[in-house]
């Protein structure tokens, strides 16, 4: 798999269509939450790009914001592209990509469960590994587990 895509030219093409929502970083495209489904759909359905495989979705908590990372793979062209979305920590909401790739369903549920980021438009937005009624989202940096952090 190569990453020798010209991210700048893709960003330019996306900017023409969707306005100032795309910034090309060295390894990834940074996009706004609102433009994410459009850009993902564009990357998936444009002939020549063909990013038809959603490799991975995950998030990270940077205490002032969440960052979501999407890795899209084009099996046909053997290329990979990464998208990054930043979102605020209170009322964290991101449009779901489950409509484009069913492969996003379980992964987005996992992010919702462990980070508390909810995905709008997801067909089944529930906790996945923890049980209903569990309080808190363990992978948030400010999460305290009662028994474990009792001494701190």
């Amino acid at each position, binding site marked *: *798999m190569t990453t020798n895509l010209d991210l700048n030219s893709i960003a330019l093409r996306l900017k023409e269509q969707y306005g100032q929502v795309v910034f090309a970083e060295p390894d990834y495209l940074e996009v706004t939450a609102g433009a994410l489904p459009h850009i993902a759909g564009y990357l998936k359905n444009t002939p020549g790009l063909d990013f*038809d*495989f*959603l*490799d*991975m979705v*995950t998030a*990270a*908590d940077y205490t002032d914001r969440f960052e979501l*990372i999407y*890795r899209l793979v084009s*099996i046909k062209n*053997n290329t990979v592209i*990464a998208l990054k979305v930043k979102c605020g920590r209170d009322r964290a909401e991101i449009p779901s990509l489950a409509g484009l*790739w*069913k*492969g*996003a*369903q*379980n*992964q987005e549920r*996992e992010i919702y469960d*462990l980070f508390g980021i909810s995905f709008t438009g997801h067909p089944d937005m529930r906790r*996945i*590994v*923890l*049980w209903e009624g569990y309080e808190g989202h*363990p*992978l948030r940096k400010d999460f305290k587990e009662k028994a474990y952090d009792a001494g701190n």
Partner: protein
Amino acid sequence: MTLATEPFILNIGPLHPSTHGVFRMRVVLDGEIIQDVEPVFGYLHRGVEKLFEQRTYKQNIPLSDRLDYVSAINNNWPYVMAVEQLANISVPQRAEYLRVIMAELQRIASHLLAVGSVMNDMGIFFTAFMYMFREREKIVDLLEMVTGQRLLYNYMRFGGVSQDIPTEFLPALDRFLKVMPGYLDEYDTMLAGNEILLSRTKGIGVLKAETAINNSASGPLLRGSGVNWDLRKSAPYSVYDKFEFDVPLGTAGDCYDRYIIRMAEMRQSLRIIKQAVEQMPAGKEKTPTPLRLRPHAGETYTQVESPRGMLGCYLVSDGTEKPYRCHFRAPAFINLTVLKELLIGQKLADAIIIFGSIDISMGEVDR
């Protein structure tokens, strides 16, 4: 007179031999036909990703073994590779070859268990399973000779592997490489044309290539549908670009194809091991690294082809001695996305086989 009927709800698992761990399926049945499936996860959730943030980089290596305990060596790999990238640690050539040999042995052991347990599910009780375990035992002996462990090997280190192979390992491996093709031929004679296997797997659980791709399936599940995607070929890591091997592909995408692919992949793994032993240079097995390792701040994503599919590690470092964030792309977890689509409309008895042919490991699904 008409009888009043209503759908029947059946819980399979979490403790049931066919769920290969503690997976639970809530199945809605109309007679024998499955109308709806709700997979229930989380019975083996240990919060591994949180545990990774609370331990130092080196303390985390044995934890990564425990993700997918059936192929522990493959699970070390993306994590150590990610840390090596962030900390700029170079790996000696000999260590890369040792990693390949051990990982391919582990792949054969894992596929043997996968095939053997599906046979159990379809009613060839324990005969095939015990045949498979005859060979798996030989592999586990080989791995024990090198690592001292039989299940969770804790073998890889940043910059290499924990220890070089002992002198008796290569002759023993050579004996294994000589006998194993004969055993695989034996399985083909006994199983590939076996009446039970054919009638229970041919045309059952058909997965189309587009559906597999849309559901992010990987590993034998994806290749069974005819998609040529194996990270060892398409994104060669370590020294995989130096070996000649084929990627077995299915045509129909049914359970039988997934079985055939696992059998064929074992032969390819043997080819890789043979070449790796011939090419392996002398040298050190490990680059020394500081005890309190502090990789540079940054993030990276590494991936390997584990027996279950694309296994990735997304690692964020903030320059301290503990990972800031560590996420594993668990192939078994993501492969289960397609389960619902595969099972609806099928008979309950076939559901067990279809589920088994995906080959999951709960340690990896729930993490």
